[in-house]
């Protein structure tokens, strides 16, 4: 099995892995190097001794709060998007009412609206509502569900055998009972996929939080990292600690769900 050819394949794969991992490893090492060692030695010298001073230093720049705001924002949007997307997808998949198909096409059409284009008008709308620099401004545009999630969920709901739902209805279940006890349990994989997409997207989001918040009160991790980098350009050990904090939670999530994520990227074109 280990023909010379396989060795070449492995060689190629390892080269790719090194190119992928080297920047992360170097950044991580720098984040545990003391500022004084970094300033005097080579930027690539081994941390001696490794230190967490950069991480504790970040607290002074409001990174503790930024972590909490980011987690809260992600959680609120996650719960809202999943709940409201499930409700809408079920209505589109199973209920009969006038205007249903037209509305569905309206939802689909909004898939073409890019976030880059809506940032400017959304900013004006939030300003008019007096919501600039509030937690509401961070979550409102995303919390009511996503047309993309609704589209995917609808496809899945339609594939669930109707007999299951009929049986529950005959037993006296109402729409909500059917959703909670029949539809959701048989849609677990797609729900996990959507939850992961939402967490990745929101945790990493930058442009909207950057424009709609100011100061430290509602600053998220990406904005705090960018601010630290532009302000303390030379203090790379500190900046690498910030970068690590912004990256590591998602890396952990990714490794925990890696099979699921790699599969769902291909299924959904996760973006």
């Amino acid at each position, binding site marked *: 099995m280990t023909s010379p050819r396989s060795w070449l*394949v*492995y060689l*190629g*794969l390892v080269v*790719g*892995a090194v190119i*992928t991992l080297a*920047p*992360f490893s*170097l*950044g991580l090492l720098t984040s545990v190097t003391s500022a004084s060692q970094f300033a005097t030695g080579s*930027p*690539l010298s081994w941390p001696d001794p490794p230190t967490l001073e950069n991480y504790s230093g970040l607290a002074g720049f409001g990174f503790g709060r930024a972590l909490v705001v980011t987690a809260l924002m992600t959680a609120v949007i996650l719960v*809202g998007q999943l709940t409201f997307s499930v*409700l*809408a997808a079920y*209505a*589109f998949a199973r209920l*009969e009412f006038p205007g249903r*198909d037209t*509305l569905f096409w*309206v939802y*689909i059409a*909004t898939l*073409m*609206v*890019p976030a*880059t*284009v*809506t*940032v*400017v*008008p*959304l900013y004006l*709308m939030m300003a008019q509502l007096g919501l600039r620099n509030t937690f509401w401004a961070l979550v409102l*545009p*995303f*919390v*009511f*569900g996503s*047309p993309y999630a*609704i589209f995917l969920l609808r496809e899945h709901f339609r594939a669930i055998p109707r007999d299951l739902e009929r049986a529950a209805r005959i037993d006296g279940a109402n729409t909500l009972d059917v959703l909670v006890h029949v539809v959701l349990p048989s849609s677990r994989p797609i729900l996990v996929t959507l939850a992961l997409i939402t967490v*990745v997207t929101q945790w*990493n989001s*930058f*442009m909207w939080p950057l*424009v709609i918040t100011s100061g430290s009160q509602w600053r998220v991790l990406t904005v705090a*990292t*960018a601010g630290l*980098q532009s302000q303390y350009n030379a203090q790379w050990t500190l900046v*690498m600690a*910030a*970068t690590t904090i*912004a990256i590591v939670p998602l890396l952990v999530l*990714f*490794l925990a769900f*890696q099979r699921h994520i*790699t599969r769902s*990227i*291909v299924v959904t074109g996760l973006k």
Partner: protein
Amino acid sequence: MPRRARSTAVGYALLAPSLFGVLAFLLLPMLVVAWLSLHRWDLLGPISYVGLDNWRSVLTDPVFGNSLLATLGFIALVVPTQMALGLVAAALLARELPGSGVFRTLYVLPWVCAPLAIAVLWRWILAPTDGAVAAVLGRQIDWLTDPGLALPVVSAVTVWSGVGYTTLFFVAGMLAIPPQVHAAATVDGASSWQRFWRITLPMMRPTLFFVAVTGVISAAQVFDTVYALTGGGPQHRTDLVAHRIYAEAFGAAAIGRAAVMALVLFVILVGITVVQHLYFRRRISYDLT
């Protein structure tokens, strides 16, 4: 209540939150951005109607023209490179040797991380005096401030973080090719090189097209990477259109002009999407009823 009326009521009740979201935060902003393109606003003062002034000034603005060209150059650098490297990686992974799954996971890592954090990481790696590359090479190269280097370097960082994602699609596309086709070609004496060009690539056309189109659409909107790596410089060489919209709106406080630019970008992206749909409708029929 009659059954039909009740079904209608329940239907709209379930739709209500997402319908509000779609109307208020996706459709209304499109109207607002069109309206804003006819007005002048500096983020703080009153909003005044200026007719087509913004359109005239943006469409004749060399800075915006430059920004569209830079975006085009960026797309031309990023999408083909990313696809070529993705094909190479996929060709290695699709042999499904033991351990391939681990490598596939590793390659996707950068893509899961915040593009902003990735850009800050690379900013250190490429820092001219105390960065990792400078330490390895032992000499200073101004990767991000040299006008000739900046755009290729920003493109390279984008490719680095996106290759794994592209690879996943290509692996799936390659594994979907029936093995009998390859076996038959091998029997006929085709080398693996010939099989790649004559069988693998042609049979992956839908995948290649999908990856190319989504690649163009996302490259056309890259913002975080530019913001943290170069801030659009040097000499506007990396001033990609999403960054120009941001700089115009929140740097120069020219919201009306930014609205025009956003609409131009929108029209371009919709154009690309429509072309994609026309292509795919011929091959795959979606059941949307």
